[in-house]
């Protein structure tokens, strides 16, 4: 587990192991270093308007990245401490998929990737917690963007499979090997392979996605393909139809 109580710690404050702390600190330092360096250059140099815009965009981008990393760490912590409070209700998956796609589109554009969305033909809803579902899809899409080839389309699709709702995040890249599969959903289970320069990771994303899916009474599967991966979030259908 990631956030174990230290044997010597008699107080109420749980804390993480030294190795995991070092790993997280390293991942947080990377975007912080960039923000610090870019800010320093903004103050030091006489930049033209294009350079200024480029530096400002990169600061914004790195800050968003940092917030995402901190969110992942907090979600991992809440999961381990059983601190999640869920509000399971009928949700229109298309609305959440569109929100997440909108948030992640700048990251996809940087890789010349597109995000496509397909949803149920009927206004079907699913039983989920809106914030949890958002976090699950965010982590899966983030992962897909990092490990997909440039100039590919990442497909988000809500479909019906054997009476359950299946939200698929399908990417086109190198795919995942059997050896990598063992580590994939583990806490801090990062796969060693080159990722884009902005794509720092705590190694918590897929772990959090799986744990949150299970907390919503669903399960997360992976379909390995030769040309990429499909992460499948299986959740219960609701009898209520969406108004949207």
């Amino acid at each position, binding site marked *: 587990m990631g956030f174990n109580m230290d044997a010597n710690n008699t107080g109420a404050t749980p804390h993480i192991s030294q190795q995991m702390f*070092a790993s997280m600190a*390293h991942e947080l*330092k*990377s975007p*912080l*270093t*960039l923000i*610090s*360096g*870019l800010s*320093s*250059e903004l103050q*030091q140099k006489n930049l033209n308007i294009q350079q200024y815009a480029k530096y400002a965009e*990169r600061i914004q981008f*790195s800050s968003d990245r940092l917030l995402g990393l901190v969110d992942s760490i907090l979600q991992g912590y809440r999961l381990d401490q059983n601190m999640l409070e869920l509000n399971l209700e009928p949700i229109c998956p298309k609305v959440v998929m569109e929100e997440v796609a909108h948030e992640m589109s700048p990251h996809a554009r940087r890789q010349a990737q597109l995000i496509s969305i397909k949803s149920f033909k009927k206004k079907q809803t699913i039983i989920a917690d809106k914030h949890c579902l958002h976090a699950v899809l965010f982590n899966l899409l983030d992962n897909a963007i990092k490990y997909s080839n440039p100039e590919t389309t990442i497909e988000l699709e809500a479909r019906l499979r054997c009476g359950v709702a299946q939200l698929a995040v399908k990417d086109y890249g190198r795919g995942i090997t059997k050896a990598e599969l063992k580590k994939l959903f583990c806490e801090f289970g990062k796969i*060693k*392979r*080159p*990722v884009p*320069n*902005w794509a720092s990771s705590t190694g918590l994303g897929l772990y959090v996605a799986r744990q949150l899916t299970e907390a919503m009474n669903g399960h997360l599967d992976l379909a390995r393909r030769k040309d990429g991966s499909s992460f499948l979030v299986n959740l219960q259908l609701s009898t209520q139809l969406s108004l949207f």
Partner: protein
Amino acid sequence: MKQLINILLVEDDLWLAELYIEALQSNGNYRIHHARDAEEALENLDALKKLNLIILDMFLPGHNGLEFLHEIASYQDTKDIPIILLTTISKIEFGIDDERWRAYGVTKYLHKPDTKPYQLVSVVDELLLNTKMVN
């Protein structure tokens, strides 16, 4: 024509690399060669021999910085090239003492988050221009 000093920057973060390259090239003294990882840096050993300085990130895809240091130290022509380590891990966290770093050829250890681009330039200037290490 002014003879430029050759520096190799091994850094996998392209935005950080761009930031450091722009800062280092601003005084017109340095020619910066950039490699994203150790393999790319070691691809052309002949080019490596002409280097005056290597600035090395430790966390790299594939072979890490330590493996690169071992490799560089094993060749007669490259073992004396001064090396600046530029890494997010602090010296204490690494747990390697100064003597061992020196044995690897590391002249200076810089903690990345505490080193602004202009500060990197100052360190490089001091190392290369003030000490006249360049022939």
